């Protein structure tokens, strides 16, 4: 294996994303149960089916975050791009906390910083994978990485533009949010595929 630390890091990043997906599913399940039970007379027997998935989702999110940090920490030993991604994870977390704890314009500004940081983490992670692929002469993964970055950046740009539309057309944000979610989900799936293929590439004993 040419990049053992790179492989270990990317492996953990992939695992982190899979756990995040499960966490989102658990959270969705808890939300559905919460809506379902709120329509009935309050009954304590419904509480566990809401609370358990919620707790599971929370725990999985924490595990996923730790895996992401450890993964980037390992991968940065084999490529510098992961170092930048690693730094921006902390920038994003700090911005999210400030955004959550405040309101008004301050919250909006730091929410934007958090989203941009998230994008930069993804871009630099994929750039790191691109570097590995270039060194291993894997043109297919290089192309995959290029496409992932272009689509990811485009989806972000579309989201930014569409979020300005409700300024001119009030009460359209719900419909546009749905469209933005679909775009971002597509970009995320492409990101996940790239990460998965990079795992396979780095696992090769060459």
């Amino acid at each position, binding site marked *: 294996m040419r990049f053992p630390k790179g492989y270990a890091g990317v492996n953990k990043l992939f695992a982190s994303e899979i756990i995040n997906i499960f966490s989102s599913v658990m959270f969705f399940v808890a939300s559905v149960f919460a809506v379902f039970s709120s329509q009935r007379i309050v009954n304590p027997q419904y509480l566990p089916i809401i609370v358990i998935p919620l707790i599971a989702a929370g725990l999985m999110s924490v595990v996923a975050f730790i895996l992401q940090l450890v993964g980037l920490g390992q991968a940065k030993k084999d490529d510098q*791009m992961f170092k930048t991604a690693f730094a921006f994870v902390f920038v994003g977390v700090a911005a999210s906390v400030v955004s959550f*704890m*405040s*309101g*008004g*314009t*301050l*919250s909006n*500004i730091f929410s*934007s*910083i958090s989203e*941009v940081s998230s994008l*930069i983490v993804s*871009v*630099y992670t994929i*750039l790191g994978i*691109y*570097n590995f692929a*270039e060194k291993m002469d894997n043109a297919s993964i*290089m192309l995959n990485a*290029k496409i992932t*970055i272009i689509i990811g950046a485009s989806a972000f740009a579309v989201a930014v533009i569409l979020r300005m539309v409700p*300024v*001119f*057309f*009030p*009460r359209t944000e719900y419909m546009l949010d749905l469209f933005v979610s679909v775009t971002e989900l597509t970009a995320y799936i492409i990101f996940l595929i790239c990460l998965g293929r990079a795992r396979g590439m780095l696992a090769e004993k060459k």
Partner: protein
Amino acid sequence: MKFQNYVTRTVKTACFFLAVMMSCLLLQQYVLRNVDHNSLRVEGFYQEERDSLDAVFIGASDIYTSFMPGRAYEKYGFTSYLLASESITSEGVITAVKEVVRTQHPSLIIIEANAFLYGDSDNETNEAHVHKFFDNLPFSINKLNYINRKVPVDNKWEYMFPLIKYHGLWTELPDRVNMMQSNFNLDLRGYNYLKGFRTTAKVFKSDTPSLNSQLPYETGELDLDPELQQNLFDLLDYSKENNLNVIFVRAPHYVTKDTYDRVKRSNKMESILEERGFDYYAFENYSELIGIDDSRDFYNEDHMNVYGAIKFTDFLAEGLANDDDLKIGEQSEAQQEMWKEVSATTNRLYRYCDDLMTNGEEKGAQEDVITLDALENYSDAPIER
């Protein structure tokens, strides 16, 4: 390495421009900005949870010094907000109504008539009054419409980006720290404590006699300024097209010979509104019925102090609570907690102002760090009249 260099250079350039933009936004929002009680009031409105207000009051200082949302909630359980600005223009009132429709869906909109009662339309182009309201509105189609239609070409950019107008304020920074901190705290907290109420602790004493006792018998009318009348018609048409429950009020004033013409214009406005099927309550004409004491309840000719405001609030809130059009929405626990805090702060403010006036001190009292700090020494128990 070409692709990586291209991407990293693009990211660095984008980050640089984003950093510049964020810095300008932060400077415009918190530092180089004409922050005053109007800013805190208008901004606080946009921090209210969407569709969480049962009633919204729109108007000028007449209403934000007269009605106490915290008191109304405590006694009658409905939530309200004072989306008002000092000497707001009639165009400002129309924009405010549109903003209320855009962000909230209150069951009642109450408009104080002041903006339509000036003897001429000079207030419509008073830059200070226009800026006090419009600078604090977020970017929206309604704000853009106003800038497009009413602002001279040379000044449009400073309305879109107030930093252009106020960049020179850095020289006044030490004096502005109090309001800057208040503004910052508002954003950190996520809501304001007084929902727009502001007062001055002072009892107005005047050698000029009040003519309030004559007003119930005054039936004379004076025509409204043509531009203001047209704006009123536009507002009424907009309200009808959008099925809004709008009522108009006129808050009590210390009416003298000099301000008597306004009463006659108010009577004219009442006739116009009745013709068009809108309710108008000229409380100014019936201040004695409300229990307003001319010798004690005002801090100047145009505004009531807390003694007057609490009476007016109780009177008007009771009327609104009995109005079939007012629908009281369900609140989450977090909102109930917030509104309890609003009522408690209002009660403290009343006691604070009462204390000041009893000791013969005169002071403005509003949602700023100095006033809020001073309130901590006072009880938050409900005020018994």
